[in-house]
């Protein structure tokens, strides 16, 4: 895992939480956010959210009375539910980083029918559309007010 300045327990908690936010799905053929490659991307991408993520994980540890990852599954679900309600802006930042990295993973993008590439240089095709739709508007009289 990349060096994110988080300690081992925080990393384990974070990874467990990421997998609970977005678990792997056989139905859609996608990994979870706790997938090794995706989670490594998450840890590499904290940058401006680093402090907020640390605060969120500290809050999670408090709610857990220690390690979130080591809780019994049922208790972990309870704590996660409380955390989702009480996490505030730090949790919002943490979830944002998870989503930013999850939805740029090649496997996830392909499962959504998206090409795993940047927009430039190939761009996209947008249909021109039927401009006769404007005909009723063309028939309208002047709408703007004149000023003498």
């Amino acid at each position: 895992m990349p060096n994110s300045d988080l300690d081992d327990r925080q990393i384990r908690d974070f990874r467990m939480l990421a997998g609970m936010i977005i678990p792997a799905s056989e139905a859609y053929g996608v990994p979870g956010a706790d997938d090794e490659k995706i989670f490594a991307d998450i840890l590499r991408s904290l940058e401006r959210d680093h402090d907020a993520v640390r605060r969120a994980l500290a809050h999670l540890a408090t709610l857990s009375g220690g390690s979130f990852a080591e809780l019994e599954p049922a208790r972990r679900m309870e704590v996660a539910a409380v955390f989702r309600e009480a996490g505030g802006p730090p949790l919002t930042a943490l979830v944002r980083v998870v989503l930013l990295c999850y939805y740029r993973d090649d496997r996830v993008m392909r499962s959504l029918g998206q090409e795993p590439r940047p927009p430039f240089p190939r761009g996209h095709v947008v249909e021109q559309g039927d401009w006769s739709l404007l005909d009723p508007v063309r028939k309208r009289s002047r709408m703007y007010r004149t000023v003498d």
Partner: protein
Amino acid sequence: MLDKVDVLVIGSGASGAAVAWSLADTRMRILCLEQGDWVKPTDYPSNGRDWEARLFSDFAVNPNRRARPTDYPINDANSPIKVVNFNGVGGSTIMYTAHFPRLHPSDFKVRTLDGVADDWPIDYATLEPYFAENDRMMGVSGLAGDPSYPPKQPPMPPLPLGKSGARLGNAMNQLGWHWWPSDSTIATTDYEGRGRCINLGHCTPGCAQGAKASTDITYWPLAIRAGVELRTMCRVREVTVDEQGMASGAIYYDAEGKEQFQPAEVVILACNGVGTPRLMLNSVSGKFPNGIANSSGLVGKNLMFHPYALNYGYVDEPLDGNHGPPLCLWSKEFYETDPSRDFVRGYTFQFGRGVGSIIEAIVSSAAGRLPWGEEHHSTYRKLVNRRIGLSAICEDLPEEHNRVTLDPVLKDSSGIPAPKIDYTIGDNSHRMMQHGIARARQVLEAAGASNICVESPILNGGWHLLGTARMGTDPERSVVNEWGRCHDVKNMFIVDGSIWVTSGGVNPTSTIQALALYIADSIKQRLANLFD
């Protein structure tokens, strides 16, 4: 001390570029100081796989989040709308959606027509030739014949409707309401060396294709070729005055952080509606203890943003998402005052094509629509690329308590006091926003959307920074005269959105630039007696 220049322009964005280019044909020595740097097209987010992520880092719209070394912090805690901007060559034209409506004729006469605020000392007809010139310089795509405007002829055809636009157009036709392809500064044909739009879709944080007009690729190459000097990474601290109270130049910090004094015969401020009052309030002297050219006390006051009421919903088929310029249509159905409504003035609807897949996930997660756990995947697939939306861009009336001042504590990296924003949304604007929300719901329902959501005001929606050094003929009620010259300092001009008297209900860049060209022409016509 550096060599004296004839004209010192501070700020290289929409208005600074236009005024510098226009004045270049005088053959005066013109220098522009820009606190940011050039942005290379290869640096734009759409070049990389992290293109959406960079909206939250080095291309965040909010300067407090972006926090590049070239940015300055803004204390916006006392405002429900946060200032967004970009600092670099091209200014906020680097970071805009390229939606390019003009003000309407009625916008210049709101006191006469509607009994509110003040009339402008100029009118639409005065600006019309400058609108046209600016359309040509920036390269505007659009469609002639819009009944909501006096005749105009965009030089390029409009952006494509796409699936989203067709659905919204049909909805507007069902309701019998006006809609029209937007004027946009996104090139739909190859234009003056710019490649045509290839639908990168990620237009706001810079266009890697160069199809979107930003002044670093429109005005500046021509201005530089004509002899204008553009000096980057130069952050101006204050405008100085001489013993007669005339502007004598500016003190700035250069790229190495070294303090410099740049003398000038004429100073032109083009730092936007927050940056300009900040600079003026920081320019304190014995002659101007409350900030330069501030005998009226109005510098920084009457800040107008345009509160945005965003409405969106989801349809049952994939649309365009963000595979194309995000804004391609507008409606002026509710733009002009209607006495039957409970507010005066009005708003533009701008229609949104869709958003990127990551933005959809983030916004939906924050709004509680996107669950954690197994259901995350199925829910997300009902949202992604199925969003359509529209925003009411509401006219903000000038109110003196909405203002830019200097923060007593916060400073930028050069130690210059930062701006502080105090702003509340007025009652008239609130009623207008509610009207827009209700009408937008009708549009979305007619378009077959459900799960309709509202964000009003858009938090990071302070794109349009207007009114903080207003134009007028009365020196006690305005900061600059009818051609942009400061009443108090006859060799200092302001050309950015600060000088707006009222805000209209449109994206302002087109009118800001037309005003800058008009002021440049006014200067050129008066060169022999400019300071009388």
